[in-house]
């Protein structure tokens, strides 16, 4: 009941995320691998905290990343034009 969207970019709902957790996903990265949540244009900027809230965050102390749901370059959508010009320089 009461299903709702978690990742708007990839159309992943709360019940999809819950199913992934029930199937053994232990952190946000594993939820991402199973559901594609966080793999769309915004790269998890919106849904990352929502997924983390559902799966729980246990890591403490000094961490090597901001989240188990990995952050990759480019951190924002980039137009091909900007990449092409970079190569010409």
């Amino acid at each position, binding site marked *: 009941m*009461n*299903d*709702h*969207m*978690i990742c*708007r970019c990839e159309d992943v709902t*709360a019940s999809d995320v819950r199913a992934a957790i029930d199937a053994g996903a232990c952190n946000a990265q594993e939820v991402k691998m199973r559901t594609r949540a966080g793999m769309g244009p915004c*790269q998890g*900027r*919106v*849904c990352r*905290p*929502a997924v983390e*809230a559902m799966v729980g*965050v246990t*890591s*403490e*102390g*000094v*961490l*090597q*990343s*901001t*989240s188990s749901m990995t*952050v*990759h*370059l*480019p*951190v*924002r*959508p*980039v*137009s091909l*034009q*900007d*990449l092409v*010009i*970079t190569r*010409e*320089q």
Partner: protein
Amino acid sequence: MSAPEAFDLVVIGGGPAGLTAARDVAAAGGRVMVVDENHAMGGKLRGQLHEDPADSSWWKGWELAEQAEKDAVDAGARMMTDVVAWGLEPGWTVRLTYPAGRTGGPSQLTTRAVLVATGAVERPMPVAGWTLPGAMTIGAAQVLTNIHRVKPGHRVLVVGMDVLSLTIARAMQLAGVDVVGIVLPPTTVKGSSPRATLGRLAPMAKLAPAKYMRLGGHFLGWSWVQALASRLVPRTLRMWGIPLHLRTSLVAIQGTDQVTGAALVNVTADGTPIPGSERKVAVDAVCLANGLIPLNELLATLDCSFVRSPDLGGTVPVHSDTLRTQLDGMYVAGNSIGIESAKIAEKQGALVALSIIDDLGLSSRHGGDAAGAALELMGARRTMEFQFDANVQRGHDDVQRAWEKSGDRA
């Protein structure tokens, strides 16, 4: 295309922290470029409008933002808006892209130092109906109301009670919006119970008596002060005539093509729904307030470590009390290292500028002392009228301990 121009400092994010740092480093003779993804400089400051509890004057963020930009430009800093930094490479290279279409700007900047002042993003509040037109974050409502001068709706429900949501509810009311009330987030949202909510707001009552009374009189209302003192959770309080339903949670946002209402339920002090108390309220917009999270995607792609701190709003890069990171030439300031007010961000900008001026060997007209400025920042934090999180200094202390430990290891 000619060889890329070299800068002493590229500032990513033209909010109060970034603009202040840009001004001071440029004034010391540095070649400075500020990039910002928005149409205008100022960051969150541009949307701020509230009565300052310190002296009852009006805090008009857009005027302060324009002044801060002018001061930085007058000092010699350059500005680019509508540009997004999508990557950082040691050395340093800042990669850029132009979502609104290229207007002749460079696709990269090379620089001796980078200040990441990327601020914060809103924590989402997923709930049935939150993707309907008319449902938005409280920050979106702030931008519509105070920057674009557009009403988010005619009858608006606000969900979530914190300094930000109360302030923006007031701004919407001043703009002529019928703010029908403020309710608590869905019971599934962590820390959303009536008791937890009151607990977070209660530290406001720990202020010095004079300020406390001013807050009581102007900001919160006397009934609220009484409630904080009594440990009871009242059903409803009013602030500027806006009802705060302290015992009501959002269940779902309703509508087919757009928001037409919201389903609510009464809850116990610990946040358990009370059967039979479900009801509906007709609204055409719902504003969701679930706090702010420091935005650190750019640094997350680099080789530096982080500390998770609920006191600071999320995960922040390890940095010194003079705002240096573990990477040479990489600096941080503003909300990306902890959710605080614009006044604190501005002080962080002035502090980090001293570190940058020192490290780059630029001359400072003012002859600043970063260690002294770091102490002054802690003092300013203690005397703020209100904090997003009462334990924010504890969070910064945790980061400082991590910094000292990482220095030992190196």
